[in-house]
């Protein structure tokens, strides 16, 4: 019905026809070559290192590695618990609190929490939870401890602290995705109906909305899981050192002067993909079983009496997600200005600007590099994604939307599994170690997030705006610039800000594509954090968090200012 109408009003050809193909060529191609570049050495083929025959020797060597069993255990524990924890926190947060007045305060906190890079939040969390951290100090004072307890509250061998860190960091992302999805299903009306039938607000949300929203949550959820399997920076800060999770272990092997270790490393990177596939398969099975089990009760309409529980749960999840995030940032700020700060004291005994004055000159260059790379990535991703979704909105949906779905693949494949081969491709193109390579590698991740954030608001835009403009004789580009962009300014700016944040947070990609020669805030901060010096890690974490936060602040403030100026204007 929309098609003939548009055909009637649209004059020219679709100027965005090439966009999806360009996006795929530029960003799925590295994925393909990267995966191949990992697959081949995993089966023994890497002529540069003397591997000229296919075989299973790399796997045999991998299986003989003493750390392997422990590493797989830690990886799976932290990945599964972290993802489930994030899901539970997000669902309970939204279900339990969405109808309460406090939600108006909490909801705006989600975006900044999403924007803060994982590494910065992990450093802050470590300051809170360590045996000598704030939590332990609160307990120590009344109990009269003068030494921290010998308890592995961070870097624990089981990986629980890592799981907690991942859960807290990913919960805002999933909550935002839930809220965005809820915007598309006429949530208020459905909730009103359910409430008129006697359900509490939380129960209504769980029973009526969640089953509808879940399919849209699946992609972000799987992305969270894939991310947590191959995360390195958070794992180094919060995870155990012996044995480490698989991803840092693979990185260690890749950095070993014994180059033959690259074969088992490639096999281990592929093992990550296998773990991911098996886990996701298991998850889908669980989904189906759960659906079969729950469907009768959902259909029958029996009311689960869990409203008070949901309220308490919502409050708890808000305290942990928002509260621990803010407290962590506060702890970072204090440590960055701390002089001597002995164990049970809650505040530093002496203050000093030494950490800042020492770190800032060192961070100046990387800060500038990070800013321009992030800005460039955000802009390129924005242009490409807008062209893609324009193309889709103009009716190109059918042939290309499957192709475009490929753009999400980088989020669903463990980074290490293709970065390894991607680095080989870059070296072949003589691009390794250049800032251009880093931009390209970052875009592989900035693009899907931009698409994720921009696609739905774009397609949800009432087509009549464009049609009116067409009827007035305006071309597609004019309509885009003069009509659509001003209306969609807020989501566009937020997508750009998240693009900046995603690029800023890239550690592994910068390391592989930049070859250590393109220092960014993320790589410098991890160097400081893994060195174990809390004060300089705090400075690094703060500077790292500041850039995305500024971007988010600008993105949310600008449309508001603009709206004020344009009040009363159409």
């Amino acid at each position, binding site marked *: 019905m929309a098609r003939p109408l548009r055909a009637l009003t649209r004059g020219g050809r679709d100027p965005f026809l090439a966009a999806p193909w360009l996006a795929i060529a530029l960003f799925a191609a590295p994925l393909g070559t990267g995966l191949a570049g990992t697959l081949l050495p995993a089966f023994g083929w890497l002529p540069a290192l003397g591997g000229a025959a296919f075989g299973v020797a790399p796997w045999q060597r991998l299986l003989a590695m003493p750390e392997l069993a422990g590493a797989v255990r830690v990886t799976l524990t932290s990945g599964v618990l972290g993802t489930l924890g994030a899901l539970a926190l997000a669902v309970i947060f939204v279900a339990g609190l969405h109808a309460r007045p406090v939600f108006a305060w909490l909801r705006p906190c989600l975006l900044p929490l999403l924007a803060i890079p994982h590494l910065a939040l992990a450093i802050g969390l470590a300051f809170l939870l360590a045996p000598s951290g704030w939590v332990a100090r609160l307990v120590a004072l009344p109990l009269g401890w003068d030494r921290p307890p010998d308890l592995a509250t961070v870097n624990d061998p089981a990986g629980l602290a890592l799981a907690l860190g991942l859960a807290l960091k990913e919960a805002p992302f999933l909550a935002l995705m839930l809220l965005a999805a809820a915007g598309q299903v006429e949530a208020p009306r459905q909730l009103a109906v359910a409430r008129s039938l006697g359900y509490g607000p939380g129960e209504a949300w769980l029973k009526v909305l969640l089953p509808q929203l879940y399919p849209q949550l699946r992609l972000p959820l799987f992305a969270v899981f894939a991310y947590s399997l191959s995360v390195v920076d958070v794992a180094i800060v919060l995870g155990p050192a012996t044995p480490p999770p698989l991803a840092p272990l693979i990185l260690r092997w890749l950095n070993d002067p014994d180059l033959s270790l690259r074969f088992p490393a490639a096999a281990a990177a592929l093992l990550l993909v296998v773990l991911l596939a098996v886990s996701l398969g298991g998850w889908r099975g669980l989904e189906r079983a759960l659906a079969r089990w729950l469907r009768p009760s959902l259909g029958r309409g029996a009311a689960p009496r869990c409203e008070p529980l949901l309220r308490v749960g919502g409050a708890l999840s808000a305290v942990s997600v928002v509260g621990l995030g803010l407290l962590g940032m506060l702890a970072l700020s204090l440590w960055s200005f701390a002089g*001597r700060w002995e164990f049970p004291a809650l505040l530093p005994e002496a203050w000093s600007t030494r*950490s800042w004055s020492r770190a800032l000159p*060192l961070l100046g260059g990387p800060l500038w590099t990070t800013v321009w790379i992030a800005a460039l990535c955000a802009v390129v991703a924005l242009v490409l994604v807008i062209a893609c979704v324009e193309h889709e909105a103009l009716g190109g949906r059918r042939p290309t939307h499957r192709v475009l779905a490929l753009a999400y693949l980088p989020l669903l494949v463990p980074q290490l599994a293709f970065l390894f081969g991607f680095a080989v491709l870059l070296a072949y193109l003589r691009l390794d170690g250049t800032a251009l390579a880093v931009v390209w590698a970052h875009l592989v991740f900035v693009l899907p997030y931009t698409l994720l954030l921009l696609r739905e608001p774009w397609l949800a835009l009432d087509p009549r705006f464009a049609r009116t403009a067409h009827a007035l004789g305006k071309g597609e580009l004019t309509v885009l610039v003069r009509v659509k962009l001003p209306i969609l300014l807020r989501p566009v700016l937020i997508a750009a800000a998240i693009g900046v944040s995603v690029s800023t947070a890239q550690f592994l990609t910068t390391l592989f594509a930049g070859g250590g*020669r393109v220092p960014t805030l993320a790589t410098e901060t991890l160097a400081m954090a893994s060195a174990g010096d809390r*004060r300089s890690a705090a400075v690094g974490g703060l500077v790292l968090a500041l850039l995305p936060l500024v971007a988010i602040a600008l993105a949310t403030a600008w449309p508001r200012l603009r709206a004020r100026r344009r009040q009363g204007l159409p």
Partner: protein
Amino acid sequence: MLTRRWLLGAGLACVTLPGALRAAPFSELLASARGQTVYFNAWGGSDAINGYIAWVGRQVAERFGITLVHVKLTDTAEAVARVLAEKTAGREEGGSIDLIWINGENFKAMKEQNLLFGPFVENLPNWAHVDVAGKPTVLMDFTEPTDGLEAPWGMAQFVFIHDLARVPDPPRSIAGLFRWAAAHPGRLTWPAPPDFIGSTFLKHVLYETIGDPTRLRQPADPATFEADTAPLWTALDTVRPHLWRQGRTWPASGPALHQLFEDGEVDFSMAFNPAEASTLVNEGRFPPTTRTFILEQGTIGNTHFVAIPFNASAPEAAQIVADFLLSPEAQAKKQDPTGWGDLTVLAVDRLPEADREGFDALPRGPATLAPEQLRPVLLEPDASWMTALETAWRDRYAR
């Protein structure tokens, strides 16, 4: 694998030659170095060291027009792996590393695989000031002759760190430390090898348990390694349950151990720089009652160096930087305990009067031992011992 090693070894003789030809007279280097960028790959885990390298960067920019970029490594092995990967990929020039901070098994690996530029060291004007007679390790890196392929940068000696207020009279042997740990559960640990502080701690255990320490001058014999190290594993297995976190996990690095010491989680820290504890006291991180000590048998001392990869993009500028690092001015600045506090490789008593003053004026930190208290100095075991120990450690403790 054997054939590959053999091929590389056979290739060694012919490929060193062009390198030797490239080492031009120093005066000519200055001109070609101007405007070059030196990517200095150096461990980046210490603020004090990073600050010093940044100072060096400003100096060489001002004096020689060289841009110095500090690529911060968490482990020097990363740089070795990178150069090796470039060689395997056929990149004979335009490599991504110009200067590496290096010693021990990493130097041995690079030298054996023919990954180094030079010899260039004796070509450096400031080489004349180096204390070759008094500090033989400037020519002998562990048990590997340097052959002019790496320029000495600083002297290191392993020390243990304690707080007088908590442990007034620390035990001065590994056996004593382990007995102390049994009496004070959870208060002792060391960084997990292959971190170099952790590995060096293991070497001290090896020195004390092997019976005949002269064996460590020879390469480890795979046939007797098991028996040679049996007492070491017995000692470690015995102390393990009394360690921090019941010996189930270890801190990742030396600085991480410092943080545990600062937080009061453990009662001992360790450093490969006798002045490091003083620096940390001055910064307000360690308590003023912090002191250092060495073992009765002595502790390991060595030299750390800078080397230039065979395919460096800017070998000329890298040599200028290596020479500047050896200058009395840069060496005195490096030894200042309010900064890095790393000991000089120069023969200070033979320096010209003006240069000597820079060293004489330096204060000795509150926690730093006097030179005569830092004896005896143990030599580094042959690098093969460490490789074998690290593998055995992984098998037993990294599960």
